[in-house]
């Protein structure tokens, strides 16, 4: 007991001394791999774990499964340093080898972990041999035929081992290898190689259950310089297409004129009934315009100008004045679009559209005579009149207060247009006053007080319509009816178009204008007010005329009360005559436009 204790202590001290001296038993070796090149022999390699400063020897021991007999490695040399080579006699297949390596030196030994090996599953053949790459010239282009031989050690002849091959190809300046599987054959044709480039080839093999061998040394082959077939095909296609293009160009050239007709059809000339193009060409404007005028209509014997129009002015908000061309229909009274803020819809769209709409509206409204004129950029005007006119826009039959977006001059807010009375000619100005509709009902009509109208001229400048079109829809009443026949309809007012000035402005003049023929009632002019200008906000600015005479019939009182500030309300009569500073129009709550606002006269 004491001895063993002493021995232990001594051993411990010896170890300490030795450690201080830098020597120790060897480190643990480790078996790195075992490989068999042909399934008949195999080799195992290990790495030493550190020799501990002393010369160390290594020994490999193995035993077969289910057997206790331990054998030592038969051959430490053949395979090199730290290896063990098992030759054919020592190799048994389908049997597990339990292998360990023992490292020993003067101070001790160390045993590695055991490794179980079945030779059948550790087969890694040698590389294939005699790799050759040859360029073969074919009618479709040259390709490379790579051929090789099996590794010498592998016995495929007897069927003992079966190898499959793989080749990889890289052309110069490529980054990646292209890999191809060759199966069990010993050659391979490589296509799609670029001409005039050097080509590198490598081959490797593998048994059906095992590891891949190493790649062979690179074999070089140079592709010849040739024009690939593809390119020649493209050249052919290019030439052919050029040919076709030339033919097409020539054909186009020959058929130039008909092509022009087809692609750019000539703009149709104006088709106006009774309009003679030759007259235009001849350049005599007088004659041209004469043709446009239907003789005897309107009965304007005393008028200086060609066009005499009447402006129908309503003062009753309940009167519906269908001024929008689009609303022209027999049912315009019940028209749905009461909420349109339309400025020029229908009128500015197109001349012809307007004309159509106006035509449509004309039917069935009675024996109204309409006279339409359009003043547009083309500055042609046509007038039409017929006995059977359709429902005129703003026909007096309208009783619901939904007028459309045409400004209407109303003499009185409460007056009704008597049915059956002479239909006044009215003036439609698109987009002029379409903003001024604070009325509860979504009506956009604008009513101008006719109080200051008489002896004033309504001048309608070119509207703010986008298309710069403003048309005036005129309804010629039966002008032959004596003026007294026209009651001083408080709800109706007439404006007469004096002339069309060069700026496409209609100069309107109230019928009560003293300049006019005496058959006109003087007092009908009291409902007129001169429109100075149409502002950018589609506001019709009226001018007050100081020469108004027939103001007595009007009482502005009620209107005054409903007027909006800023203007102080003026007595009815005087409002007509006083010249006010230039101000904007006042829009009253009931939709009337206060025409008492003065505009500087022009």
């Amino acid at each position: 007991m004491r001895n063993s204790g002493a021995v232990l202590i001594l051993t411990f001290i010896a170890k300490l001394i030795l450690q201080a001296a830098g020597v120790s038993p060897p480190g643990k070796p480790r078996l790195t791999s075992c490989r068999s090149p042909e399934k008949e022999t195999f080799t195992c390699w290990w790495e030493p774990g550190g020799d501990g400063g002393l010369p160390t020897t290594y020994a490999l021991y193995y035993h077969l499964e289910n057997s206790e007999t331990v054998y030592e490695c038969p051959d430490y040399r053949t395979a090199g340093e730290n290896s063990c080579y098992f030759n054919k006699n020592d190799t048994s297949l389908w049997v597990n080898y339990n292998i360990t390596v023992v490292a020993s030196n003067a101070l001790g030994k160390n045993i590695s972990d055991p490794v179980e090996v079945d030779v059948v599953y550790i087969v890694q053949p040698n590389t294939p041999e005699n790799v050759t790459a040859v360029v073969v010239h074919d009618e479709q282009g040259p390709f490379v035929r790579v051929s090789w031989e099996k590794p010498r050690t592998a016995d495929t002849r007897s069927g003992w081992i079966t190898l499959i091959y793989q080749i990889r190809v890289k052309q110069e300046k490529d980054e990646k290898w292209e890999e191809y599987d060759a199966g069990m054959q010993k050659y391979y044709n490589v296509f799609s190689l670029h001409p005039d480039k050097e080509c590198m080839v490598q081959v490797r093999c593998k048994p059906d259950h095992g590891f891949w061998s190493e790649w062979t040394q690179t074999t070089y082959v140079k592709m010849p310089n040739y024009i690939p077939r593809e390119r020649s095909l493209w050249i052919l296609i290019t030439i052919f297409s050029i040919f076709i293009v030339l033919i097409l160009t020539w054909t186009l050239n020959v058929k130039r004129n008909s092509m022009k007709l087809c692609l750019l059809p000539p703009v149709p000339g104006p088709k106006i009934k009774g309009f003679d193009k030759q007259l235009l060409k001849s350049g005599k404007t007088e004659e041209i315009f004469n043709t446009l005028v239907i003789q005897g209509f309107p009965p304007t014997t005393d008028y200086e100008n060609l066009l005499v129009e009447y402006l129908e002015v309503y003062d009753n908000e309940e009167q519906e004045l269908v001024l929008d061309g689009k609303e022209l229909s027999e049912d315009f009274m019940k028209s749905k679009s009461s909420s349109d803020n339309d400025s020029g819809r229908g009128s500015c769209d197109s001349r012809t559209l307007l004309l159509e709409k106006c035509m449509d509206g004309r039917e069935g409204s009675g024996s109204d005579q309409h006279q339409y004129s359009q003043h547009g950029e083309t500055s042609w005007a046509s007038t039409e009149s017929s006995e059977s006119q359709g429902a005129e826009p703003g026909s007096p039959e309208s009783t619901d207060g939904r007028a459309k977006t045409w400004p209407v001059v109303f003499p009185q807010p409460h007056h009704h247009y008597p049915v059956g009375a002479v239909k006044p000619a009215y003036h439609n100005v698109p987009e002029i006053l379409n903003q001024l509709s604070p009325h509860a009902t979504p009506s956009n009509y604008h009513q101008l007080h006719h109080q200051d109208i008489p002896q004033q001229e309504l001048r309608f400048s070119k509207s703010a319509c986008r298309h710069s079109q403003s048309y005036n829809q005129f309804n010629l009443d039966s002008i032959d009816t004596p003026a007294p026949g026209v009651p001083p309809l408080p709800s109706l007012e007439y404006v007469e178009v004096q002339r069309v000035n060069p700026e496409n402005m209609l100069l309107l003049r109230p019928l009560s204008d003293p300049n006019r023929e005496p058959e006109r009632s003087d007092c009908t002019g009291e409902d007129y007010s001169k429109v100075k200008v149409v502002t950018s906000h589609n506001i019709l600015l009226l001018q007050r005329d100081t020469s108004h005479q027939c103001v007595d019939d009007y009482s502005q009182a009620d209107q005054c009360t409903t007027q909006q500030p800023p203007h102080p309300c003026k007595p009815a009569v005087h409002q007509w005559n006083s010249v006010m500073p230039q101000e904007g129009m006042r829009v009253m709550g009931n939709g009337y436009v206060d025409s008492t606002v003065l505009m500087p006269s022009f």
Partner: protein
Amino acid sequence: MSRSLKQVAVLLVALLCLDPHGRVGSAPICAHGPSGCHVPSLADLFDRVIQHSARMHSLSNDLHSEFEQYFLPSKNHIGKIYRKCHTSNILTPNGKENAQKLAREELTEVILKLLMAWRDPLFQLHQSMADQQDFNSFSSNKALEMGDMAHELRKGVEKVAEKMRVLGMLGNSVTGLSAAEAMLPLSESGEAMSDYELLYCFRRDSNKVQNYLKILKCRIVPEHDC
């Protein structure tokens, strides 16, 4: 009216189906001798059989690695205890020379013995794999397929042997396998082997079979792939 027509049509179809003479039967191939059809040559038979054995071995390899991956946490070889495979009683050549030394008949017999020995154990393996919840259905299907393939392979090899005998390549020393050859996979201790052990053993044995067939083929019909 249409309904009754339909019923009549169904009845007719049923009659046709039930009528044994109306049924399409499968006629045996080459019933009228070699003039009518292509009789596979020995080389073709060998190729088929070898392909079959390759497929069988890859299946067993897959199952074994699956087993090792999922059911054996430790790769510690020390911990593994291998019992002897039940086929270790069959003497099999364990090297190339040994295999080449064997006569064709013996080699054929070894192959057949091996395949026979695995008929029941594979069935057992499939059963136990299907029973256990651990295996997914894919694995147990593989085991089933493996068993079927072993069975088919045995039949194929028997046909090859028959052909060889007909061609005079084999002597008559090939003895028929009797039921006594079928062995139960009992280890020495009498316990049944575990699934893992069965798989391990079968992987090895299927490799043997494949190898022997290849050797046999290259010995008998060396022109293809040898």
